[in-house]
């Protein structure tokens, strides 16, 4: 198992090299002069040239690339032209917000999608199943930003149950940062007000992000459950008097989940890369918003940094899924 994990971690090296090369190439191909943009409309040619020297942008692109990679080895992601801060600092500030959102969305998607998939498989081709299938198609086909707007309209504007956007109202003092997740930090600090407030702010964007993976997980779970229910060992379990409820929730569920795990891993990466629109709609101060601003001002260092971090997280998420797969499926574990 340890060798397996190490081997998968080694895979990160080609991923990093590939990502950086692609991102550098794109940055080079884009028209426009980011340095001029960063220096401001009134800057003189000399000032622009000085800024380019300061950031090493006067050198040939392969030197820039070599400098960047050697910086990466020391945890240096370069400096943002826009914020004038190290990209690593910025990412450290914005990443937890995005991760919190993605985790919350995945928790909702898994916690609802898996039981719903089981239930619709057991009740297949009856009305609860049809209802869930129609809902799933709706959830998958609706764009997330539009869903976000609908949720805002419904729960924030009309019903006024939940806040419109942001992570915390200005009047609430945020808890000291430990994990960067406001919900967990406020629990650690024992700050109940901050906890409920951050949870209420988290709810709508997390739901908006969760529906599509929820529907996919549900449908995967439904089809794999139906397949597992036709297996001989389910017949044996029935023939030997195990209660149907136990057969479904214990024996069938575990076999069916392993097929669904892969989708969960893929969706994690997909959500990480796809937070931009939801973060924009809900004014959520995460990586997506940060990257959007950087792209608009052609500030390439943050864009490359964000792409790298998301790529790394994606590989990690799938590594965790593979390990979980071994936990659930003993055959994988022992071979």
């Amino acid at each position: 198992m340890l060798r397996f994990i190490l081997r998968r971690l080694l895979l990160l090296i080609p991923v990093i090299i590939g990502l950086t090369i692609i991102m550098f190439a794109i940055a080079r191909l884009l028209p426009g002069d980011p340095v001029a943009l960063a220096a401001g409309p009134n800057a003189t040619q000399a000032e622009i040239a000085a800024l380019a020297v300061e950031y090493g942008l006067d050198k040939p692109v392969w030197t820039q690339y070599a400098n960047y990679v050697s910086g990466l080895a020391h945890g240096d992601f370069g400096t943002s032209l826009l914020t004038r801060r190290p990209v690593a600092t910025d990412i450290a500030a914005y990443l937890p917000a995005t991760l919190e959102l993605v985790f919350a969305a995945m928790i909702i998607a898994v916690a609802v999608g898996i039981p719903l998939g089981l239930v619709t498989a057991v009740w297949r081709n009856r009305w609860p199943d049809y209802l869930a299938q129609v809902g799933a198609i709706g959830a998958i086909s609706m764009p997330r930003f539009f869903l976000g707007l609908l949720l805002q309209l419904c729960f924030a504007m009309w019903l006024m149950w939940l806040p419109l956007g942001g992570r915390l109202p200005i009047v609430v003092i945020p808890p000291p940062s430990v994990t960067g997740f406001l919900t967990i930090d406020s629990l650690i600090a024992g700050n109940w007000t901050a906890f409920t407030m951050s949870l209420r702010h988290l709810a709508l964007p997390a739901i908006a992000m969760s529906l599509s993976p929820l529907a996919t997980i549900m449908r995967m779970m439904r089809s794999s459950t139906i397949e597992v229910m036709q297996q001989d060992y389910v017949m044996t379990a029935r023939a030997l008097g195990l209660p149907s409820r136990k057969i479904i929730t214990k024996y069938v569920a575990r076999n069916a989940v392993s097929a669904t795990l892969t989708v969960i891993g893929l969706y994690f990466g997909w959500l990480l890369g796809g937070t931009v629109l939801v973060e924009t709609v809900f004014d959520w101060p995460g990586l997506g918003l940060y990257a959007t601003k950087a792209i608009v001002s052609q500030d390439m260092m943050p864009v490359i940094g964000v792409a790298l971090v998301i790529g790394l997280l994606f590989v990690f998420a799938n590594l965790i899924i593979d390990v979980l797969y071994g936990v659930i499926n003993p055959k994988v574990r022992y071979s």
Partner: protein
Amino acid sequence: MTAPLLSIQNLHLKMSSFDGRAHVLNGINLTVNRGEIWGLVGESGCGKSLTGLSISRLQPTPPAHYVAGEILLEGQDLLKLSQAQMQRLRGKRIGMIFQDPTTNLNPAFRIGEQLVDVALAAAEHDAGVLDCPPNAGRRARRIAARKLAGDMLARVGIPNAQARLDSYPHQFSGGMRQRVLIAMALIGRPDLLIADEPTTALDVSVQAQILELIKNSVNDFDMGVVLITHNLGVVAQTCSHVAVMYAGNIVESGPVAAVIGSPVHPYTRALMSAIPTRETKRGMLRGLAGSVPNLIVPPPGCRFAPRCQFALPACTAAMPAAVPVGNDHAVACIRVAEMEALVHG
């Protein structure tokens, strides 16, 4: 006299399919007592597995539809029970073993856990299964069930049984898995064991061991067995009685020595003569002319008549009733007297 362990009376089963309703069980009569091993033999599709599944009511309805008949387990008609009531009998009073040991154990769970769950389910309805007081807590019951699981594994001949409880199914060979499944079927101390082709997927040498195990368990557990197979060799080796099925009917039944020693029904005789012997020349395997009839539009009268070399016009009039020809030996054929003369003459 008390009611027999299992008594199937005039069981008719129809099966809905795309092409229409097939009359797949056409009046099955079968009585099994404790201590008896009944072999149920016949070609594929003759209804032998369906009979087994019907006893434990595992055949979904629809598509199956019980038209008439009774399945009595010590006098209680199983066809009148709800699925919830049946669930209480399964594992506890009726144990089942299926054909393929590689697919009948859940690959994701340790075998100990699967055995324990069956034992606990059986103990729900008969506290005597576990060796602990009936009001014992969950933990105590689990511990007792685990001990019982280890004992059962040892009984079916798995070495180092207690430690093997923590193994997964794929860590056993096919024969060992079938032993585990037998342990699982017997852990609730059933009165009746239904074994559906339990050795078909196994090597011949392992096959003999498994059959021996089933044979020994009959005495140990004082139960009756219905052994479904298409292999007459298995029947001769293991069973005390045999019922020969053809197209949804039992055409001949009785003690193994009588039925296999002196078969009377033309179908049984044809089956017996199809078994190659030492004298059979290479390339001279004898089969049975014709094929299994379509059960949606079954042939009138005796269903074997179209393939029978002794058939008379009268054979197509009505399905012949079983006629006793000896001690417990019964044959469903209108020419039974002439056939008997043929056997003994």
